[in-house]
């Protein structure tokens, strides 16, 4: 047996000594946590894992910077003759990956594709391009877009990949689908996809924007779903960059060859209460739940301390954000919580169910909440469900309490209206408040930023005081990289921005 073990070990060591086919070429190898789901059609793919590649392959008319300012992308400038008309001047010499020059006709086609119900495009809602009435190509480099109604965040919303500009010829050649084709203008073109293993995007030499040109010959995305395998791959130099979770951070603290890169996300995690169901229809109970939470403790346990106490408009939304640390319901007060429970007629508490799933931080939040709500007599059964079941509970609004992580987008039209307006698809708690609805409508119908801020802040405060949700935290997102990687500065606006990034191996 000893002999056998020795032989096996020797075999393995031999393997270890075989020269690694170390990439001499200039390639970024990126270990990601999930495979592209379904493919790469920017108009119909919602999976974050696919966005990593879509972001390299496609461009939008405009982009949004870290401070939420709209900046040029395919459109170098734009003007707004009136509140519902936008005229975009396109960059010159933009080439599709097919080699064809992009014109205003392609922009027109792209929006028509999004608005055509048969496409089933995700951007066909007023959160994105759904309010477009007509798109006209005034000449080859000028596009006029007219909206059906005023939509203040329209420009910023055009920065979504759901509003990418696509190559009509490629769409038509592939039977109307871009899932497995590349009809983009971006700095990288789609290379090989080996499902469940890797995706390669290759540099596009004719990219229109010098500053945004590909700095790598290729980016190879490796699907390493197992977190410890991903970290081992980085440690051994098999990959240069990985998507990290907070549990990894302590493990690499003393490793000089690895750097930690992070940004404050626009996501937030918290409890959603079904206001149609007793006892959550009682505002006193909802207030008590909010007051029972010790948010710092949840952050320590579920996020390893790497998150900010947050409401549903997180700090990364800049001037739109509301500082919840000043809100009375965001500071734990067990005495008051118990008193409110008694007032509501639940002096002895009640039993309820919390649905968790999808992410470890969601599951862990559920566990801490179970214990914290126990302090005020609420007996919580945590139901950890599989993805399909979780989505069903979300879509069917079928839950008592659900722990979710949502993205607040880049404008309160998303953060507030999408999640809290009566009848909105993401208003899973079935909240309905006439004043909030009115404020959301007012805010979208004016382009005066100061006014909009005033409307939204009022709406946000109503929702906070109604305690419709008990939001806990806005997490930091982490990457780990070899110290050879230079210039990678992800942000909530663009987590996969590789322009100007280099490797000095």
């Amino acid at each position: 047996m000893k002999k056998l073990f020795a032989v096996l070990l020797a075999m393995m060591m031999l393997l270890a000594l075989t020269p690694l086919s170390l990439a001499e070429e200039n390639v970024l190898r990126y270990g990601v946590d999930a495979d592209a789901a379904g493919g790469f059609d920017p108009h119909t793919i919602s999976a974050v894992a696919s966005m990593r590649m879509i972001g390299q392959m496609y461009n939008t008319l405009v982009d949004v910077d870290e401070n939420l300012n709209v900046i040029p992308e395919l459109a170098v400038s734009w003007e707004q003759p009136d509140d519902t008309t936008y005229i975009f001047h396109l960059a010159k010499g933009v080439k599709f990956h097919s080699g064809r020059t992009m014109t205003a006709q392609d922009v027109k086609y792209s929006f028509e594709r999004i608005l055509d119900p048969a496409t089933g495009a995700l951007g066909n809602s007023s959160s994105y391009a759904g309010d477009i009435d007509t798109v006209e190509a005034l000449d080859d480099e000028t596009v006029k877009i007219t909206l059906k109604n005023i939509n203040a965040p329209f420009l910023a919303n055009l920065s979504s990949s759901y509003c990418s500009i696509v190559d009509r010829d490629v769409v038509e050649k592939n039977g109307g689908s871009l899932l497995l084709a590349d009809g983009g203008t971006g700095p990288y073109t789609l290379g090989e996809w080996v499902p469940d293993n890797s995706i390669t995007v290759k540099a596009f030499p004719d990219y229109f924007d010098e500053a945004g040109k590909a700095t790598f010959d290729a980016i190879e995305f490796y699907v390493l779903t197992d977190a410890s395998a991903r970290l081992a791959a980085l440690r051994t130099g098999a990959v240069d960059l990985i998507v990290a979770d907070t549990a990894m951070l302590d493990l690499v603290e003393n490793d000089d060859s690895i750097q930690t890169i992070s940004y404050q996300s626009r996501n937030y995690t918290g409890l959603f209460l079904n206001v149609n169901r007793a006892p959550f229809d009682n505002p006193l109970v909802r207030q008590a739940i909010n007051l029972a939470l010790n948010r710092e403790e949840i952050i320590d346990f579920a996020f390893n301390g790497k998150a900010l106490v947050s409401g549903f408009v997180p700090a990364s939304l800049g001037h739109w954000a509301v500082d919840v640390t000043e809100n009375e319901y965001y500071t734990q007060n067990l005495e008051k919580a118990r008193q409110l429970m008694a007032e509501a007629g639940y002096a002895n508490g009640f039993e309820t169910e919390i649905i968790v799933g999808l992410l470890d931080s969601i599951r862990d939040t559920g566990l801490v909440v179970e214990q914290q709500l126990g302090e005020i007599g609420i007996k919580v059964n945590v139901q950890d469900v599989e993805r399909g079941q979780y989505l069903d509970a979300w879509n069917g609004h079928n839950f008592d309490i659900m722990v979710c992580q949502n993205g607040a987008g880049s404008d309160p039209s998303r953060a507030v209206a999408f999640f809290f307006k009566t009848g909105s698809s993401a208003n899973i708690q079935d909240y309905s408040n006439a004043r909030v609805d009115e404020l959301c409508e007012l805010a979208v119908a004016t382009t005066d930023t100061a006014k909009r801020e005033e409307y939204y802040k009022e709406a946000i405060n109503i929702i906070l005081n109604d305690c419709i949700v008990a939001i806990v935290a806005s997490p930091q997102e982490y990457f780990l990289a070899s110290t050879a990687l230079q210039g990678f500065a992800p942000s909530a606006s663009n987590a996969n921005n590789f322009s100007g990034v280099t490797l000095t191996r």
Partner: protein
Amino acid sequence: MRDYIIRRLLTLIPILIGVSIAIFVVMQLIPGDVVSGILGIEETPELRAMWEAKLGLDKPLIQQYFSWIGRAVTGDFGESFRTGAPVFPEIMNRFAISAELAILACIIAWIIALPLGILSSLKRNSFIDRIVRVVALLGVSVPNFASATLLILFFSKAFHYYTPVKYVGLFENFGTNMEIMILPAFILGSVMAGSVMRMTRSSMLEVLRQDYIKAVRAKGSPERVTIFRHAFRNSSIPIVTLIGMQIGALMGGTVVIEQIFSIPGLGQFTLTGISQRDFPVVQGCVLFIAFLYVMVNLLVDILYTFIDPRISYS
């Protein structure tokens, strides 16, 4: 024999129909569907209706099933709901990878298990026997995800080594492919080896007690001949049965190992299909795996007649 094989192949038909109905029903019963996966948080009633129509999910269930099975009998397993790519060629690609892994794992398992199993039966209750039994128990009881993670960590820490991350086919680059496959195959093989070793030991022990072995020994036959020609051959029926079952399971892919080592095998394809509720993918994969099981079992049954000529099918 020929009639027997034909009869066995004919039983495939009800088995596959039964499996296809079971899968169809299960996919309907489990919560969640492919559309909510596609739309995610952007789901609205209009978009849902659009996608259901696009994928044919708005038709009555019976019609959905029959239109699928109608195509399947002609060898057309349909297209993935998610990518639109045809399912069958992808199953074949993935199967080739899983089959390679399974075969390598078997070879490793046999190399470890058969000699050690025989040895420990001959030296029953000796020191070697005890060691072999402990190792076998470890092989059976350490879950492969744990040994996989531990081995990855061990190699990365001790040798600064990680298996190549980019999958390369067997015929593209033999060396690199082997480098990718050897570690996962070793892990799968060691688990298999544990049970094969135990089975070899116990069935050898049983045969060695038989009178005819005494007779063989009494007539002065060399020990080597006694063991391999007379004892091992007669004890190999349960071993072959066990190995057959294990190969069947391995061919269908070993999800956990494939996932940890990013090997694009059949197991991962099936799992992704299930988690995305991609019905044509799941249906195609499961039917194919069911087909494999039946075929491997048939092969094992045929093998019996070679091992033991007294067994015959008529």
